[in-house]
């Protein structure tokens, strides 16, 4: 499998990358680890004419502590996150989430920014990003803006990123009372259901991926939690259109969503 022809440009700064995006519009794609994009290009399902490699831009692969936040550069690989002492100490559910992605080789190469921008409905990060109320920092021609996680995911492979924007970082509040629980699809090992829960006193925030074509905050669970405790998991798919495929039809996936929300609430 070989992609269709394209030009490759290694950007040395965010500004250069944005300029190139602006210049080439729909014909251009950003690549960092490439683990979402390159397989699609090999199958010729994605055919960018220009590939802008942002993996060499300095400052985008750092993990830092800024006040109450942990800031993850968009080019950080899943392995960077798994191995980060800072993440393990102050945002361990993100390390837990990253560890569930792919395999050693994929984690060594795939990036958090790439995964979020790709917005696969069965990807792992979205649940955690949502439950943590993280902020996606993006930069475009018009400058920098921050998008709340709840506003970021718009649909299957669709995000709030504008055509000329790229993700530069993800800002997470420090969370040590959260966890991520996943039921693996047996072939791809993507999430059939992935649930992230953050507990804040009597309140919970619940992010769910894999269940619907858009990852979501299970607000029905969150609202019922104070009264019902982990039984609130029964509301895991309230108001949600549940996906169905060969591995999990609507009935089974709905059941799994409840099981894994419960598991995450009780963890």
């Amino acid at each position, binding site marked *: *499998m*070989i992609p*269709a*022809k394209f030009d490759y440009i290694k950007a040395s700064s965010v500004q250069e990358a944005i300029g190139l995006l602006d210049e080439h519009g729909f014909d251009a794609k950003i690549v960092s680890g490439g683990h979402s994009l390159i397989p699609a290009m090999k*199958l*010729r399902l994605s055919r960018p004419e220009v590939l802008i490699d942002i993996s060499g831009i300095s400052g985008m692969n750092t993990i830092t502590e800024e006040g109450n936040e942990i800031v993850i550069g968009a080019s950080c690989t899943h392995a960077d996150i798994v191995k980060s002492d800072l993440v393990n100490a102050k945002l361990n559910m993100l390390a837990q989430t990253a560890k569930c992605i792919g395999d050693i080789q994929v984690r060594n190469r795939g990036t958090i920014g790439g995964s979020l921008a790709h917005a696969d409905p069965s990807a792992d990060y979205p649940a955690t990003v949502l439950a943590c109320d993280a902020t996606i920092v993006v930069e475009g021609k018009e400058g920098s803006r921050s998008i709340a996680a709840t506003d970021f995911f718009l649909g299957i492979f669709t995000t709030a990123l504008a055509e000329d924007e790229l993700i530069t970082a993800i800002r997470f509040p420090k969370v040590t009372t959260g966890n991520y629980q996943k*039921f693996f699809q*047996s*072939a*791809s090992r*993507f999430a059939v259901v992935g649930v992230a829960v953050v507990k804040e006193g009597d309140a919970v925030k619940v992010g769910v991926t894999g269940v619907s074509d858009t990852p979501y905050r299970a607000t029905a669970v969150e609202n019922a939690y104070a009264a019902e405790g982990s039984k609130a998991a029964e509301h895991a798919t309230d108001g949600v259109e549940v996906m169905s495929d*060969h*591995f*999990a*039809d609507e009935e*089974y996936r709905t*059941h*799994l969503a409840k*099981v894994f929300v419960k*598991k995450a609430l009780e963890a």
Partner: protein
Amino acid sequence: METFIGKSIKRREDDRFLKGAGRYTDDIKLKGMTHSAFVRSPYAHANIISIDVSEAQNMEGVVAVFTGNDACGAFGVPCGWQVDFKNGETMREPLHPLLAKDVIRHVGEAVAIVIAETQELARDAAELVKVKYKGLPAVTDPKKAMEAGAPKVHDQWPDNAAFDWCIGNDRAAVEAALANAHHVTEMEYKNHRVAPNAIEPRSYIASYDVNVDKYTLYTSTQNPHLIRLLLCAFALGIPEHKVRIVSYDVGGGFGSKIYHYTEEALLTWASKEIGRPIKWTSDRSEAFLTDAHGRDHVVHSKMGFDKEGKIVAHLTDEYCALGAYLSTFAPAVPTYLHGTLFQGVYTTPLIHLNVVAPFTHTVAVDAYRGAGRPEATYLLERMLSKAAKEMNMDPAELRFKNFIPPFDGVTQPGFQTQVALQYDSGNYEGVLKRGLEMLGYEDFRKEQAEARKNGKLLGVGISTYIEGCGIAPSAVVGALGARAGLYEVGHVRVQPTGKVSVFTGAHSHGQGHETVFAQFVADKLGIAMDDVDIVHGDTDQVAFGMGTYGSRSLSVGGSAIIKSIDKILEKGAKIAAHKLEAAEEDLVYAEGKWTVKGTDKSISFGDVSLTAYVPHDYPEGLEPGLDFSSFYDPSNFTYPFGTHIAVVEVCADTGKVTLQRFVACDDVGNVMNPMIVDGQIHGGVVQGVGQALLEEVVYDDEGQMITGSYMDYAMPRADDIPMIETDRTVTPCPHNPLGVKGAGEAGAIGSTPAVVNAVVDALAHLGVTDIQMPVTPQRVWKAMQN
């Protein structure tokens, strides 16, 4: 003197593989080599309205584009086995064209080949070939294919059946016995379709040398000589002596690389047309769509028991998919490789199997590790366990009640089955006893009862299998419809210095022949293993051969080599007698030398070898040289058997099955290299477990494959599997010189029903009696809800 048989000698082939120096087909580059890509149908069933290749043809770097409208359109690949209708009608056998011309019959069928200077250009140009299709309704399920009004795969026949065949006792007698049985167990299920998935995709390089008028085809095949025969005599009609087939290292086969594929013939034809070598290597996506699949039987079965639990009769009806065209061995798989094992290891007096085998709008189904025997074993072993539960008996006890008693095939005769075959030797209760002991069966049952009280779902599943291997006596398979003999060739060339080159028609694609064959050759000749070289995979070096499949390499291929060694020792004795001035009958051969009995007068193998090639002082009338080739045609199949036991835990919340333990006690006859036999069992077991738990090829109603990549086809991974606990009993095969039975397929045959039996056992107290394979979390969870 060091001997080698029965020892776990480390493999001599390993260093090259471990250093990345294997010679797989795609590693080969020839001078002037072009690359190719196929245009494949996105439809399962369609009429081709038009094909426009002009844009592709005019692209820079494109060497040629061929379609079914070119001369190659007249050629097709043959089927090697004919199974006729039970009413006498001849098997329906369509042309399997190298390129589809008018009608598409499965997704992925090739419409055009594009040949270009590079792989990239070939793929780019393939996208420029414009094909107009008119989509038609498709049928992919074998039972639905036989329903009235089903879409027809081939218009020339009134229905989709390629044949309707039966085996065993008279159907009416079996039905009568079932009607009178104390208990009847019944099952309806699908032994679903799986994809072999050798990790090396198929790869071919065809080259035609005009100066010597000779073709060379490098191919990832399990049987180079068979490919040459099929390619020359049937596909292209080219002279066999002008074709060389080379398959050095092959990255796994599991059956899928036995068959003569259309791409092999097409590349060979095209290489002469363009006068340059052409390479094609399959993508994994193409492999899912075009490699022959395995299984795909829809089964309805009844088994009757008397009040003691003895089986009185067994009746089964099956619909077995063949795919759109008949692959090389396809008709044999659901018939002679399947029905002939319906006796199992039991004394069942009355057996009848009817098989309707339709064409379907899918890629072909052919032999996949075990080939027909896993399907037979799955049926028998699920039935036995289901029956035991229904009759409130222990599944091991029910098996012990029904076993054929032990027989060695030497002092006791072989066992004549109701389904054509005669078993060679067996001790079926022995492997079950040992298997139960390895597991600690009684303790497990206690543990299971305890666990159940705590809501933990543990299950144990037993399977006691037999298989027919060492395919095969030519006269027998000929009578059963094979269009080839199935002997093997072993050529032993003693070099003048006493070093030995062995040329075998068997082919190693992971089995370790280079090591194992050298072990017994060295022992038989009393020389060092380092003095023995094993050559395979090149028709210009190896005189003839039938290849490796059906666990036949050692029992058939090894025996052919032994025959040649016998001839060498016989001739060597004449030379030795002459040199030692003794009578031949006074000589003994041991430890690499001939010695005159009762004396210290001897001559070494090396000295005799040199004499044979420098025959100055030499027996009168004896030809020089020490070089023999032999054909070995076995007198019977071999019949390995064993017990596999699985222990599973089912997650009550999700239905996910975890395989906790897997115990395998196999009897493969004598063992040349225990390390390699264990490795074969491990691999086979995991393939069988894969079918039970994970793997499934799914076509939708339009004939689209929805499991066409590793994103959707679940392969067993390291963390899906526990360590495999193995042991053996040894019941030698009485009819071949090494006493071996074959170990390649055993693991895949015994394991699948053991796992499903265990899952059903774990859920039995919830009223679950059967679950369709693969027992995915979703299926298990749903079974628990009902």
